[in-house]
């Protein structure tokens, strides 16, 4: 007789209905920093969604003579850039770019990486070998470097342009992350008896993989997504710094830091404000990811 007795506290049995959501909320909001992160993200989403209403100026409108590189304060709360464009407005529009780059890239790479991981983990053998070694190969390239190369290649072909180059390049670079996590999760879920139960009752492989394994892989994936979103925004900034970022006049934080960086001493707000925005949002995504991890599945601590 095997008695489940893994922790010090053996009490179990008969949990109360509807406590799950409460528990989730309690754990999630237990840490103030997570709450702070969530607030930052909510504000950012609001800023992105209502950018035209929130911005005092057109972010692309050139300033008049003498409006170049204004210091913060006065009419332009955060000053202006070289072309006299309002920094605050560009910062708000930058939230759009950041979210777009982040979410679309995550979606695309998840859409490719997750099924690859499930298939590799579920079938094992040669399929697993081929998929996972290919993922290993991609992972051998530093993400920034791979994105840089891909962006350079993608720009050469006139198929996609502008922000999509960045999005696609980053998407490809992070596919292995999804495949790996899903692969690992699939391997462990596969061990569960309910998967054998499905097979015992005659479910098809597709049904088992996408109706039973996939939903169970969501918690670690959600955590991965939040972490990746932060990494993607940093990578976009890095690409902009190297000159393969968002095309002008698009307002992207990375590009703004890079633009403002040339006026390091003269106009602090120009680079510091997008810099803080990046750091803050990446931080927020990480915090929310941490919070989700703790709330969704404490066992994930240490895995990601």
């Amino acid at each position: 007789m095997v008695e489940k007795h893994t922790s010090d506290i053996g009490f179990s049995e008969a949990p109360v209905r509807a406590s799950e959501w409460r528990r989730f909320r309690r754990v999630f909001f237990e840490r103030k920093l997570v709450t702070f992160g969530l607030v930052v993200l909510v504000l950012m989403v609001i800023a992105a969604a209502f950018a035209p209403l929130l911005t005092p100026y057109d972010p692309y409108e050139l300033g008049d003579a003498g409006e170049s590189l204004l210091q913060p304060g006065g009419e332009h709360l955060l000053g202006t850039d070289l072309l006299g464009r309002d920094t605050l407005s560009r910062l708000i529009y930058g939230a759009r770019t950041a979210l777009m780059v982040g979410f679309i890239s995550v979606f695309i790479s998840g859409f490719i990486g997750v099924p690859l991981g499930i298939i590799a983990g579920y079938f094992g053998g040669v399929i697993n070998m081929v998929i996972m070694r290919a993922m290993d190969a991609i992972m051998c390239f530093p993400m920034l470097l791979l994105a840089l190369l891909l962006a350079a290649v993608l720009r050469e072909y006139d198929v996609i342009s502008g922000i999509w180059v960045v999005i696609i390049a980053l998407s490809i670079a992070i596919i292995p992350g999804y495949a790996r996590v899903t692969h690992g999760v699939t391997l462990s879920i596969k061990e569960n008896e309910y998967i054998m139960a499905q097979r015992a009752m005659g479910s098809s492989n597709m049904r088992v993989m996408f109706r039973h394994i996939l939903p169970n892989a969501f918690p670690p994936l959600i955590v991965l997504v939040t972490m990746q979103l932060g990494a993607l925004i940093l990578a976009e900034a890095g690409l902009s710094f190297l000159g393969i970022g968002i095309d002008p006049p698009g307002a992207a934080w990375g590009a703004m830091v890079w633009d403002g960086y040339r006026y390091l001493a003269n106009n602090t707000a120009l680079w510091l404000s997008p810099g803080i925005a990046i750091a803050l949002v990446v931080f927020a995504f990480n915090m929310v990811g941490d919070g989700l991890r703790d709330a969704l599945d404490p066992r994930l601590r240490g895995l990601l």
Partner: protein
Amino acid sequence: MNPLKDEAILDVRDLKMYFPVTRGLLRRKVADVKAVDGVTFKIRRGETLGLVGESGCGKTTIGRCVLRLYQPTSGSIFFEGEELSSLSESKMRRIRCNMALIFQDPYSSLDPRQSAGSIVGEPLKVHNWVGSQSEYNDRVEQLFRLVGLDSSMTDRFPHEFSGGQRQRIGVARALACEPSLIVCDEPISALDVSIQAQIINLLEELQAGIKGLTYLFIAHDLSVVKHISDRVAVMYLGHIVEITKSRTLYENPLHPYTKSLLSAVPIADPFVEEKRERIILKGEVPTPLNPPSGCSFHPRCFMATPECSQAVPPLRDVGAGHQVACIRV
């Protein structure tokens, strides 16, 4: 609990299930784990056959072979007269409707992201067992009531149930397509003592209520197996060493392994315990990778003679359906 008819619903003949062991770079097969090594038994319709043995003896493997979750290495399994090991996957799918499996762990055997109702209804969907949504709902509710759960709990998730309740959900799922054979793989060993009896009674009541429901009851707990089964098969290292009516098992065990197994199980009664003979086996169960020659029990056996290591003793009838595989009996 007499068998309804003397018809064998399941007839397993010389079943062998070897798992290859690979070594080295090329994963060359170097040996086999002989999890099940030539097992023959029958279960009559409506009967409960207990399969008992220590971990690694192959009892779970037999259960999984019967459902063809493993493809047996050799031997044949007749289920309701049909030979399973040669069936196509689609035919097997149809057959699986008539068999079900109840698992040991009530935690990992239920998909945590599926509601209880949908877990129980899953076989119905997989086998298109019901016509309409309302028929489906009715059937699920019916199953819930059948296993003693409140049918209002269908939309709850597994973690909202206690271990015993979860095992009831497992039982309901197994019953969904009205199978004639349920393989119960250690269905109660993960439960608390006070809950085990509830599930044992449930299984017994179901068998009494559903005509022809047959159990292959796999467990390591001899007292439980003896309690629920009509007949008990004792396994050691991939072989059945003794099959007999459960009554005879305690009163007249023949195989030395059965004897020592019985002796190892303490009885919750100091007055009885005072008088019991205690056989403490030496050493550990050998690995099925490299089982001893002849009777695989002989190195630990207190009755062993040199001949025991010569040949594998066949399972032979010693009267009244009592079969034993030992040359010293």
